[in-house]
């Protein structure tokens, strides 16, 4: 912070107490790491979750329950491959039902992870640091679950590769690139791959930390392999940060494109209730809404069970609640616009669809449940009392997750079951296999989350280190307080309220 002589003279020497300044700073910039931590204690606290010999008992209970539920997915999938997709309730007129609802629901949940890791990084939001790792893991596991549905919906997943990907085959035909369904394949597979790369590149320095701390030779060996011999060299960090920034930069348009392309699966068709130009932003906002709800569902128990309150602070929860509120309002606005367009568009089919969806049709109660879950529940977050209560945030998040599932049900089933021709109208109801399949993916998701919590660092250790005050490099041979004061005063001088 070397100032020129001229500038130094111009510094107004007002008396601001450094303590007062720090207090002001504390109030304006909420703490992202609480408690007295050093680089070492941060590494130990997060690293010990995986390296500690004793696995907590609640972990075994949790993973056992989740794994049992995941068996529903296994059995249903095997039965489906033996019998065909007729075991589902999916049939004309609702040819896209539970599998696509669940696909869109899961892929939407993934979006919060990329938003936190990429967009908040570009916006320089420090609070992303302690939640990005498991939000990214959540993204990966959610996308893995999402991919199951369209694959098994083809009935013969081993043949589906030829329909989904441009693989040369004996019939000499190719996928149709003009179709949004193929766009979707490219978007989702790119999304899964880039999310995996992003997550893994973030893990490399932390795996090196675990490698150097692990006592168990097997763990040490595995961590050595996956940390690629990382040694924290300044040259490596330089390229690492560039790569990380580039990944964030390209993940941002990617994450916005994925749910946009998913929405085009619907919007490019002619079905009333699907054929709407505002679908892409509506879907992206909904995805982030659902994703933040899932992040909260995961991180509220996590910070208690693993005593991570120093890193996932109250501030984090409040911020996530606010993001949920903001995206929730975009979603509610979209519901309103959807109804408005139905009326204002003066197409009898569109208007019928709205009437059928909201009050005349047999599924009208689903719509009102959706409004209750997605529109009404977040209104509680206006109040500080609810926003700052973990229990309230947890309940609202669960309700929002249910609401986002209902939203996809309303969009998909109520649009399909009564379209243009009354002679082709029908009703849809899921069978037991639809339900076991969906519940099974929940079990699979939580099994993966439990394994992740046990074997990998749930919070990015190296990024949390950078949040500690001792990570700042101070000016040479100058006192920190002096620097702080200099910055403040210089700012006052060069940028006065009345410039003339």
């Amino acid at each position, binding site marked *: 912070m070397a100032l020129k002589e001229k500038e130094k003279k111009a510094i107004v020497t007002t008396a601001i107490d450094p303590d007062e300044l720090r207090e002001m700073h504390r109030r304006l910039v909420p703490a992202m790491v609480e408690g007295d931590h050093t680089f070492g204690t941060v590494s130990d606290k997060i690293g010990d979750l995986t390296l500690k010999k004793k696995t907590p008992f609640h972990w075994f209970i949790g993973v056992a329950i989740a794994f049992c539920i995941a068996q529903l997915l296994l059995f249903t999938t095997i039965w489906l491959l033996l019998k065909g997709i007729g075991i589902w309730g999916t049939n004309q007129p609702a040819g896209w039902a539970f599998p696509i609802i669940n696909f869109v629901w899961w892929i939407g949940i993934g979006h919060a992870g990329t938003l936190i890791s990429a967009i908040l990084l570009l916006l320089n939001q420090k609070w992303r640091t302690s939640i990005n790792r498991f939000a990214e893991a959540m993204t990966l596991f959610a996308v893995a679950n999402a991919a199951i549905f369209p694959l098994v919906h083809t009935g013969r997943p081993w043949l589906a590769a030829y329909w989904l990907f441009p693989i040369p085959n004996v019939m000499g035909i190719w996928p149709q*690139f003009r179709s949004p369904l193929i766009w979707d394949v490219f978007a989702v597979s790119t999304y899964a791959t*880039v999310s995996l790369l992003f997550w893994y590149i973030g893990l490399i320095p932390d795996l090196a930390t675990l490698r150097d701390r692990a006592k168990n030779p097997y763990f040490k060996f595995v961590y050595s*392999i996956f940390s*690629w011999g990382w040694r924290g060299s300044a040259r490596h960090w330089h390229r690492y940060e560039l790569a990380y920034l*580039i990944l964030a930069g*390209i993940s941002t348009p990617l994450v916005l494109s994925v749910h946009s392309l998913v929405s085009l699966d619907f919007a490019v068709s002619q079905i009333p209730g699907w054929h709407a130009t505002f679908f892409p932003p509506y879907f992206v906002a909904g995805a982030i809404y659902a994703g933040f709800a899932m992040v909260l569902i995961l991180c509220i128990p996590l910070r208690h069970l693993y005593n991570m309150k120093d890193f996932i602070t109250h501030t984090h929860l409040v911020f996530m609640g606010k993001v949920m509120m903001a995206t929730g309002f975009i979603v509610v606005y979209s519901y309103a616009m959807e109804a408005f367009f139905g009326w204002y568009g003066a197409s009898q089919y569109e208007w019928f669809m709205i009437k059928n969806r909201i009050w005349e049709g047999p599924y009208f109660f689903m719509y009102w449940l959706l409004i209750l879950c997605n529109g009404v529940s977040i209104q509680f977050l206006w109040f500080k009392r609810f926003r700052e209560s973990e229990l309230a945030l947890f309940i609202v998040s669960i309700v929002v997750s249910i609401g986002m599932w209902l939203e996809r049900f309303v969009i998909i089933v109520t649009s399909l079951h009564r379209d243009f021709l009354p002679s082709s109208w029908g009703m849809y109801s899921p069978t037991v296999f639809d339900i076991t399949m969906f519940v099974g993916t929940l079990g699979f998701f939580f099994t993966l989350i439990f394994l992740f919590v046990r074997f990998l660092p749930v919070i990015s250790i190296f990024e949390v280190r950078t949040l500690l005050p001792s990570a700042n490099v101070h000016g040479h041979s100058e006192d920190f307080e002096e620097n702080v004061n200099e910055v403040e005063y210089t700012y006052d001088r060069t940028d006065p309220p009345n410039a003339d």
Partner: protein
Amino acid sequence: MENNLYGLLVEFETPTELVDAAIRVRDAGYRNTDAFSPFPIHSIDEALGIKRSILPYLCFAGGILGLVSGIGLQYFVHVIDYPIIVGGRPHLSLPAMIPPAYELTILFTAFTAVFGMLFLNGLPRPHHPLFNVPRFGLATREKFFLLIESTDEVFEYDKTRNFLEGLEGQQEVFDVPE
């Protein structure tokens, strides 16, 4: 000792001391140097004279390659190999080709960023002379290290060791065997 010496490693307690020392080491004429820290320190690049990496250019090239492959793949499929008219659209329907090409651009850029970074960093390298110093394990935890390689032109064992021991804030100087 000097024949199989990789370099001299010096340990620091704080990032500020590391950056200060890096500036002194550079001023003393050492060039084959490196610093090790448990998290990225931005001012170290300037202190050690690390040039900006070519990685962004590689990524740009990767992105262009992705775009070209995306368009090329669809052109080959729909115009050359199996032209078929769907919905009365021309074989070359560029607007419909945008989404796959866009996704492939991102995919190729991401692969270039990650594997380019690892390649330029010379990773994977599970065995490195530095790992022979037991204390170096703390570089991924809480300590800061500065290395002068023995291949440096100005490197002379005794002189360099004395110089490093005279640095402000140094905890200990280690010999790094090959």
